[in-house]
């Protein structure tokens, strides 16, 4: 059994990118993603990673470079945050439609304006429909592990989709914590070199990115949608095999004390642990509370989610992004529609909290759950806002 090493999560992520024998790193600096890229530059310049490090002039070009390099069959990595994602988002969508297995780490941060460098999920929610496989990591270990899992699943001939790992900015990127590193031999066993189905090479000329008129566009989009939906079993397979090698098993939905829960809190990302403390506290006070953490965001695991909340009377969804003038936060919107067709459906109360670095402590979760008891289930509340 490998020992745990204390390191900053960003460093661990970069080490994983190295261990995955990445060929191309293209990135532009943005807080709080910088430590990942800085460490990768160091690894490349010290000869520890044989890759091309491409210090692009913008995030738009970072994703464009990755599109080009992935299209020739190179294992390609980028990472960004907030405004950087917004700038590159045009190409993020195209990378999915081209079915290029690029890996991206997103250090989640609020979108301007006002400018704020702190953590929430408004950046990733702006590309919710980009067609990538998207997961949320709860801790540094999950970030490190999902570099390997991400490449493995993305490059699976049954998927061939880009893979996005969300890690909360600062809360994870700047956190020093114990990480269990995987032996290189195990990494090599789990993650074979990328063998593209199609690649740009003169020996077999192909055309990529052709345009579609209305007679074919719908078919192209249907194929893309089926590919993303159809990736679920291969994501599960990637997790299963990773678990068999490391003992760490991941699931689309993580449940905490949901079996008999009447009130279930739903979160994504690094606040899951904090939320679980609130659940313990509420249980001590006699509340039948439980927690559901959504790891897999796309494709959305409808079946697993419905199963997880089936006994609940009240589901409290904590969103970390606002859909201005909409029905609720993006996560609550998903969850309400996931449950709408159910015969017995719980009331879904939406709380928006932890926006742009506003700290959320266990007591906050407790208060949210208590306040939600009175919630109508319509619209949303912004927790802790003054005035």
């Amino acid at each position: 059994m490998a020992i745990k090493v204390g390191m900053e999560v960003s460093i661990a992520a970069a080490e994983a990118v190295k261990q995955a024998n990445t060929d191309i790193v293209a990135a532009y600096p943005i807080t709080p993603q910088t430590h990942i890229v800085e460490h990768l530059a160091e690894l490349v310049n010290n000869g520890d990673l044989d890759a091309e490090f491409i210090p692009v002039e913008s995030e738009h070009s970072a994703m464009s470079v990755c599109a080009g390099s992935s299209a020739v069959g190179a294992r390609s990595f980028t990472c960004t945050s907030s405004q950087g994602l917004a700038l590159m988002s045009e190409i993020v969508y195209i990378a999915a439609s081209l079915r290029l297995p690029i890996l991206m780490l997103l250090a989640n941060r609020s979108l301007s304006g006002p400018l704020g460098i702190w953590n929430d999920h408004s950046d990733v929610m702006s590309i919710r429909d980009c067609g990538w496989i998207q997961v949320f990591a709860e801790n540094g270990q999950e970030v490190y592990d999902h570099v390997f899992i991400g490449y493995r699943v993305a490059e699976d001939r049954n998927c061939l989709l880009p893979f996005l790992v969300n890690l909360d900015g600062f809360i994870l990127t700047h956190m020093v914590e114990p990480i269990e590193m995987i032996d290189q031999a195990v990494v090599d066993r789990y993650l074979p070199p990328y063998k593209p189905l199609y690649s740009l090479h003169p020996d077999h000329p192909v055309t990529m990115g052709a345009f579609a008129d209305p007679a074919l566009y719908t078919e192209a989009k249907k194929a893309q949608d089926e590919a993303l939906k159809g990736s679920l079993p291969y994501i599960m397979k990637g997790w299963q095999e990773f678990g068999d090698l490391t003992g760490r098993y991941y699931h689309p939905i993580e449940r905490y004390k949901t079996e008999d829960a009447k009130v279930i809190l739903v979160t994504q990302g690094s606040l899951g642990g904090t939320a679980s403390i609130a659940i313990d506290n509420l249980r001590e006070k006699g509340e039948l509370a439980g927690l559901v953490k959504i790891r897999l965001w796309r494709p959305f695991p409808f079946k697993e989610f419905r199963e997880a909340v089936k006994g609940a009377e009240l589901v409290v969804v904590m969103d970390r992004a606002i859909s201005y003038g909409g029905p609720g936060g993006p996560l609550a919107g998903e969850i309400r529609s996931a449950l709408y067709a159910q015969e017995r459906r719980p009331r879904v109360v939406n709380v928006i909290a932890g926006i742009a670095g506003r700290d959320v402590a266990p007591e906050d979760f407790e208060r949210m759950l208590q306040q939600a008891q009175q919630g109508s289930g319509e619209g949303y509340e912004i927790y802790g806002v003054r005035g």
Partner: protein
Amino acid sequence: MIEIRLHGRGGQGAVTSAELLALGAIKEGRYAQAFPSFGPERRGAPVVAFCRISDEDIKLRAVIYQPDIVLVLDPSILRLVDVSNGLKADGVLVANTRFSPEDIKKELGVKSRVATVDANKIAQEELGLTITNTTMLGALLKASEVVDKGAMIEPLQERFGRLAERNIKALERAYQETQIL
């Protein structure tokens, strides 16, 4: 679980102190977190960093509001920032100051234990500059044995290389010279 809040000025290495402490705990096979205050502070501005140490997996990711230990790296911050804010009654304030614990207790009105050491002097003598982040770790370990002093050697060596010896010596001296009340 022990929660520690560190006060310093940007560029003085408060984050490094927190990290070294966490790394020491992890070397012991325990769980730890170290994280900065996530601010845009630049060199010179008062900053805080945090550290949690536990024998079990740490789930909590919120900021530390009620620390068991407060570590103050810079004497000039003592009167500038409310360093004892939230400090638990059975906690300890560890400060870099020329003054005695008694003086500090009286001046700041701290009810909990107070440990002091003139870390500026030690750092100046041992390292040739008043960067006190490693020196103050000695004071912290004297005031509360959150991590075994021996477990700190390796992280210090990894971080400081050929300068490690002098930092370890500064830490040792502070450990010896710290007064607690």
